[in-house]
């Protein structure tokens, strides 16, 4: 039911946007107001989220340790899986953010009666990694629309990405990998019963939105070619705060732009904000040094304890008769 609702909502969003673009008679709205509003929401939203997280302190040093601690000199430590230095924490975070270290541990449990067997299960890791890196490459490639002259690295990336010249214009490798990874992530969510059971509309909608963005992008490149000069004029106008509404940009382009704007605006307010949150995770970004360096809790407050004196006076008779030395004679 939830996948259907999500799919319906997505179609409705697309239809409403297309209708607005075709018959709304307000190109300025879709070309300028929507992207600016989205960019504003994205920036303010992300900053708001980070500040909100930042306002809550980390009272205790609670890394989840994934390897041997640093204790005796002759015992090899778990390195970045259980860091004891700032460099180690950086290593742990870089591996986590760039290579999805924890997902790489993933395995699958299979049960037969009372026996459990564990098999390698790297597909989720691979799918997620391919999706995120492809997405990054696609975003970076788009910088060519926002810059003049185009910086050399962006041009190199574009050239490398299109190296497999099987069609004209060249098919980007990352377009293929992005779509494949998205199909895998959505398919998996629908096909694995436990995953479907726990998935919310908030899990399907972002996936469907990104799929719609990718599909409209690919369609523009290979089927409904757009006037790239017009697109670039619009993009440059937006980044230089001198927006123009060029002639020649089609409905499909405006739909693509609208969907990207919707994604950017939504990003800080849903689960996609994990891209920022991962850096703040106290189970990952702290060194396991709780016994070597005192961590201070900023909201620490005194509590009622049972002091030695109270304890001694309660058990004084028994203490005396069984030969304990008392503080209070």
């Amino acid at each position, binding site marked *: 039911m939830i996948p259907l609702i999500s799919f319906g909502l997505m179609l409705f969003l697309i239809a409403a946007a297309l209708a607005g673009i075709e018959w709304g008679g307000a190109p300025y709205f879709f070309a300028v107001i929507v992207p600016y509003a989205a960019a504003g929401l994205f920036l303010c939203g992300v900053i708001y989220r980070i500040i909100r997280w930042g306002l809550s302190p*980390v009272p205790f040093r*609670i890394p*989840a340790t994934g390897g041997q601690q640093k204790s005796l000199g002759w015992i090899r430590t778990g390195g970045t899986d259980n860091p004891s230095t700032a460099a180690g924490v950086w290593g742990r975070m870089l591996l986590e953010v760039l290579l999805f270290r924890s997902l790489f541990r993933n395995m699958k449990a299979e049960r037969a009666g009372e026996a459990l067997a564990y098999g390698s299960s790297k597909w989720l890791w691979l799918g997620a990694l391919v999706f995120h890196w492809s997405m990054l490459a696609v975003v970076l490639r788009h910088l060519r629309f926002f810059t003049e002259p185009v910086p050399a690295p962006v041009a190199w990336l574009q050239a490398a990405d299109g190296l497999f010249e099987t069609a004209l214009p060249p098919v980007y490798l990352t377009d293929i990998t992005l779509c494949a990874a998205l199909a895998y992530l959505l398919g998996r969510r629908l096909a694995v019963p*436990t995953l479907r059971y*726990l998935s919310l509309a908030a899990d399907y909608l972002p996936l469907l939105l990104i799929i719609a963005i990718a599909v409209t992008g690919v369609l523009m490149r290979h089927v409904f070619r757009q006037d790239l000069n017009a697109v670039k004029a619009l993009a440059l106008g937006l980044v230089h705060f001198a927006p123009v509404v060029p002639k020649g940009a089609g409905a499909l382009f405006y739909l693509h732009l609208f969907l990207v704007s919707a994604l950017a605006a939504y990003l800080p307010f849903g689960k996609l904000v994990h891209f920022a949150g991962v850096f703040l995770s106290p189970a990952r970004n702290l060194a396991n040094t709780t016994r*070597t360096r005192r961590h201070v809790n900023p909201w620490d407050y005194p*509590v009622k304890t049972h002091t030695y004196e109270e304890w001694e006076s309660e058990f004084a008779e*028994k203490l005396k008769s069984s030969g304990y*030395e008392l503080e209070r004679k």
Partner: protein
Amino acid sequence: MAIKIQPGELVQYDYRPPRRGWMDEPAPFRPGTYSHAGVKKHVEYLGLPNPREWQPYEQDWKLPENWKEIIVGGMRERLGRFRSLKLFLDICVRCGACADKCHFFLGSGDPKNMPVLRAELLRSVYRRYFTLSGKLFGKLAGARDLTEDVLKEWFYYFYQCTECRRCSIYCPYGIDTAEITMMGRELLNLVGVNINWIIEPASNCFRTGNHLGIQPHTFRDNIEFAADEIKDLTGITIEPSINRKGAEVLFIIPSADIFAEPHIFTFYGYLMLLHEIGLDYTFSAYASEGGNFGLFQSHELMKRLNAKLYAEAGRLRVKWMMGGECGHMWRVIHQYMNTMNGPADFLEVPVSPVTGTRFDNARSAKIIHICEFTADLVHNTKLNLDPSRNDAYRVTYHDSCNPARGMGLLEEPRAVIRASCNKFFEMPEETIRERTFCCGSGSGIGTDENIEARLRGGLPRAAAVRHVRETRGVNMLSCICAIDKATLPAVMDYWVPGVQVCGVHELLGNALVMKHEIPRTANLRGEPFAGGEAADA
């Protein structure tokens, strides 16, 4: 309520979720799968909210009238105090990597035991009261009202989590279900919803210093009894001291070590080892418990119970502290104590008087784990060990969750075991070290009335033990946790009969050749060494 579970009874399940959505499925409350309520007098003694007589199986939980306000207010307060909570409620993408990592899910198939869904129980309420989308779109945004059924569901599933952190290791963001469960339990406690297996030990511990409520004279008797047993076994007189001022080391143990089986054999091991090397140490009858059931109730109670450790070290003017074999006690000591009850600047950095090794890893908290201490002795060959005395045992090692994932104490116990045994076999790598499976009874849910949940939660650990039993003939499961020692025997008896449970220092005590000992023919349990007297020759 004695619950009898027949062999084979617990494997009739699969991992297919029900058709109805999880929000519409109330918690089942089947006898055998939950613990009984905190008894009024103990709740009162600790000064905790809403003391009353009630039980989870009754319809009316006798909540305070404004319970909803209390819970929502409590959430607001904790969101402001713990970045972990706020972040973990915000960033989960429900990728499902954690789902089949939880021992309770693997052993029960109950989808709400998937860590992600366990967190959603809390997250759904968070969305409803603290996020715009949840307020606007309700169920569609994964939000739901806080109702009594939701509260009961929290109770059921937050006491069906052992805070073992296995899922956190697999989560791409390190979302730590232990944090979620700890916060969930704190919230429940605000309206007096708790379980007696946590409240009573905590109340005993607050009053007497230990979970069972052992008073100082009995504490002394038990320790002297252990010394007598050792004299019978080895001919050596050991005179452990209690509350002795000016000792070099204060040794804190889980109190189960001095009265429960098989814990007591580990206690013999400690006494023999520390006597043999001549460590100047003392026990304390006031700080007679290292375990801390406050961890399973609230941060505040954890701090209240733990205060005695440093206080007693100060009073006795010791130089440094050592802790015995206990799992959650070490989570508290390693990750909380220095912050909560420190600074311990009146103590000195622990230095082994035997080897001269300075334990820099404890230079601020000034407390070391006995496995760190003994591993250093073993490495420097300061002990005369005869591992053949353990030849009757084919040993495997269960990494206790808290020392593994809340600390990283993985190789130290293994070094001690390898030096003490000839026949040591590891379980499959997916089930040990940082990937270890919980015993299924940790975090205060090791009660008899909860036996079905415990056996189910113990299935993954038991399956791994069965594997090495079948392939390597393993008959002894060693561990360094008092809760493991208390609860794994029942799990083994049900799933893998014939496997016993022991502590690492029991194995060491068996192997330890003491100066001037009488010829020994039996191990600490009084069982003959393999091959009888011949093995000792």
